[in-house]
């Protein structure tokens, strides 16, 4: 698990991190932040690998990671098990 945080107020809702996360662990919120944007949320912090690809693409420096541990489920399995699409529907 990675200690990943998305600053909802910094997020401008561009969704780039959503498509960048190889595990499909990021989705957009259903509520707006103070600036009126839907913001990104990590759906599975427990299994986030801390690969920081979402941080790399975020134009607004809204995602930060402090330290990481091994995910609970082996990375290989996660990527096979969950896709962004599945997650999105799961949370709908």
């Amino acid at each position: 698990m990675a200690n990943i945080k998305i600053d909802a107020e910094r997020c401008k809702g561009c969704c780039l991190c959503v498509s960048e996360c190889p595990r499909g662990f990021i989705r957009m919120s259903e509520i707006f932040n103070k600036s009126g944007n839907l913001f990104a949320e990590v759906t599975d912090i427990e299994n986030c690998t801390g690969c920081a690809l979402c941080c790399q693409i975020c134009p607004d420096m809204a995602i930060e990671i402090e330290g990481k541990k091994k995910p609970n489920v082996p990375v290989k399995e996660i990527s096979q098990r969950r896709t962004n699409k599945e997650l999105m529907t799961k949370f709908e």
Partner: protein
Amino acid sequence: MQFKRPKTIKDTQTHYCPGCGHGIVHRLVAEVIDELGLREKTIGTAPVGCSVLLYNYFDCDIIECAHGRPPAVATAIKRCQPDKVVFTYQGDGDIAAIGTAELIHAANRGENITAIFVNNAIYGMTGGQMAPTTLIGQKTTTTQNGRDRKKQGPPLKVCELLASLEGVAYLQRVAVSTAKDVIIAKKAIKKAFQNQLDGKGYSLVEVLSMCPTDWKVTPKQAVDFVNNEMKAAFPLGVYKDV
């Protein structure tokens, strides 16, 4: 694993549109400044363009220049203070249209500065007019039927153009449209700063970047445009490394 906002970036939220590439490039430049420990000896130049306000985000000395003139301003600062680190940050209109002469001559003199060139194939700040780097067929507010090679010429390729100049030490074209590209871009920017510290001469990194607003597309589509169209017209890679 740590991933934090670089120290050289202020806490302020940027004014850039959602999905704009400028924010990523800002972060990369700031990270490099942090990693090389240069914040207190860096003087940056701000261009005219969407990134004119970069002094609101960078926590180091910055001088805002007239449109296209940063290479001349940076030349003088570096000559007067050779022990300092000087970088320019320019858009495509700034560097490859109005400031072409300043660019070519600073590069040809081999000024020991670092140039960051953000190529988004459009004039962002003024509302989406054709840039020198606009692609053939790309629609802008001044090429409403798409850029026509016969009328507007082909897109201007800065790295290819500068590669023939002896004074230039390093040229690389990168992108910020995927996380992988961003990681490569960071390495290139770091090298361009390191070259200056090593006294190698003019180093320029061209960054293919997204302007969803003036391309009139979503951020995701903008990323796709860079990946599919821009990378084809502007091949990535190292154009010079001496």
